[in-house]
């Protein structure tokens, strides 16, 4: 009896291990250090992010979460002050060796904390990326715009005012417009940086449902200041604190107290941060 149970357990364990091995690695980050001038914002970050998972990143303000995201998208080309060291493999490719960074950026959708409605109409905001890709056909564009706006839970509110300026929408609507725009890229990787700051709770819940569905099509990195949001959505979670990645782990495990560093539990339970 005991033997068979043990056997079953061993078997199950090796099963989970083998499925973990089969999971495709989307991002492999090693010894990543991001600094502004002399000051390091994050140092020596190491972990992997798998395809079709939602990877949560939690941590207090100034922990370096946004700096981490910027490094993934090579945003340092806009900020001469920002320096990135270490290796980032995207689909196994070192992103610092790519001949065409624009091809990489166009595969990564980014949603910033504060919505950025570009100074054009709602329709044009969402059609911009497809147009940059060379799609000119009106019917295809219409279809993409509608699908992306529906997925970002904005369609019903803007379907009658697609031709009004995107920057005239309310904050929460603009954030959903930003998400729709990111989706119009048909990204492999979707990065959300504290997206719910400017969004009301009901809409937040609706977007969360959408993210759960999107997971089947893309990899999602979700930086959030709401630890419960990470719990609801993330398969695995990393905890950042003062420029270091304290630990990464299975989200449920972390929230159930199976942590390597007690600071993680302290943060999750709201004892600081």
């Amino acid at each position, binding site marked *: 009896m005991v033997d068979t149970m043990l056997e079953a357990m061993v078997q199950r364990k090796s099963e989970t291990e083998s499925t973990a091995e089969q999971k495709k690695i989307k991002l492999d980050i090693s010894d990543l250090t991001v600094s502004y001038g002399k000051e390091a914002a994050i140092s020596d970050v190491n972990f992997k992010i798998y395809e079709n998972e939602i990877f949560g990143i939690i941590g207090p303000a100034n922990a370096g979460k946004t700096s981490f995201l910027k490094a993934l998208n090579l945003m340092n080309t806009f900020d001469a002050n920002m320096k990135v060291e270490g290796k980032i493999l995207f689909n196994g490719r070192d992103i610092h060796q790519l*001949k065409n960074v624009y*091809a990489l950026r166009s595969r990564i959708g980014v949603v910033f904390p504060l919505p950025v409605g570009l100074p054009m109409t709602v329709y044009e905001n969402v059609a911009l990326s497809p147009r940059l890709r060379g799609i000119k056909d009106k019917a295809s564009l219409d279809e993409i715009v509608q699908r992306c706006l529906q997925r970002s839970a904005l369609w019903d509110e803007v379907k009658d005012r697609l031709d009004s300026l995107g920057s005239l929408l309310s904050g929460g609507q603009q954030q959903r417009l930003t998400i729709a725009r990111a989706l119009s890229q048909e990204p492999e990787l979707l990065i959300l940086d504290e997206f719910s700051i400017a969004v009301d709770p009901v809409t937040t819940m609706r977007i969360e449902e959408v993210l759960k569905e999107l997971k089947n099509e893309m990899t999602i990195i979700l930086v959030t200041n709401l630890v419960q949001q990470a719990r609801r959505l993330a398969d695995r979670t990393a905890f950042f604190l003062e420029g270091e990645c304290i630990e990464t782990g299975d989200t449920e495990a972390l929230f159930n107290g199976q942590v390597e560093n007690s600071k993680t539990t302290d943060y999750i339970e709201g004892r600081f941060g």
Partner: protein
Amino acid sequence: MTTTQTREAMNEQFDRRTLDWYIDKLVEIIVFISGISAIIFVVGIFVFVTMEGMGFLFDSFSFSEFFGSEYWEPSDEDAPEYGILALIAGTASVTGLAMLIAIPFSLGTAIYIAEFSTGKTREYLKVLVELLAAIPSVVWGFIGLTIMNPLIIEIFDVPVGLTVLNAGIILGLMAAPIMTSIAEDALKAVPDRYREAAEALGATRWQVIYKTVLPAAKNGLLGAILLGVGRGFGETMAVLMATGHAVNIPGSVFDSVRALTATIAAELGETAVGSEHYQVLFTIGIFLFLITFVINLTADLIVRGIKNQ
């Protein structure tokens, strides 16, 4: 399986430089060349002007005579004297008066257009200001000669109307529209949320402008003013016509003066190329060039200083 395929395809994209990539690089190169050629032209002009004035600068240039003497007598055959003190005084007095007029006028107009006027009024005013900015300077000079001149003689009961006052007013009116236009752009660039945040604190309209909008637009407003100063220094035709063109250190605004630029414009055509007089005029050119440079540099430093605060 399909993901492996797309992944391979994706990886290929990262190595393929598309047409867009090459266009991007091409634009970068074109922009770089335009930027560099602007610098080359400026340096080239400076070198040319310096070369032309060099003979005088190295042979008979006397600092104390050039800047210290009020006698500009280049045509004196026995002992020509090249003192530009009076010319500097002429340019400075006219520009100073012009700014005294143009700064309050242009800032006031800009604040009215940007902060108070609405709808149609605003549109009409903007078009009008731009129209005024497009009036050629010789027209302004003409107004100085034919309208302002008799008006000043009449009102102030003075013998001549082509004076510092006349040129200062003309130059001030001339510089005001372009200054207004730039100042208005600076005010419009201040985001509305600043105004809303200040209004929410109970600030009056003027308090909102004075405490938040003007400080936020400081750089642009300063730029507008310095552009006006530069315009005053560089303006030639209108001051030539409205100052009376008499070498004189003015004792009051009712005196005639002569400006640096007007001197070059009026005399260069009559001098023999390479003669001493010709070289002196180019030396004045170098001087004007340096002054403009210093004004721009000061502006740049001030703007940087404001940014760092």
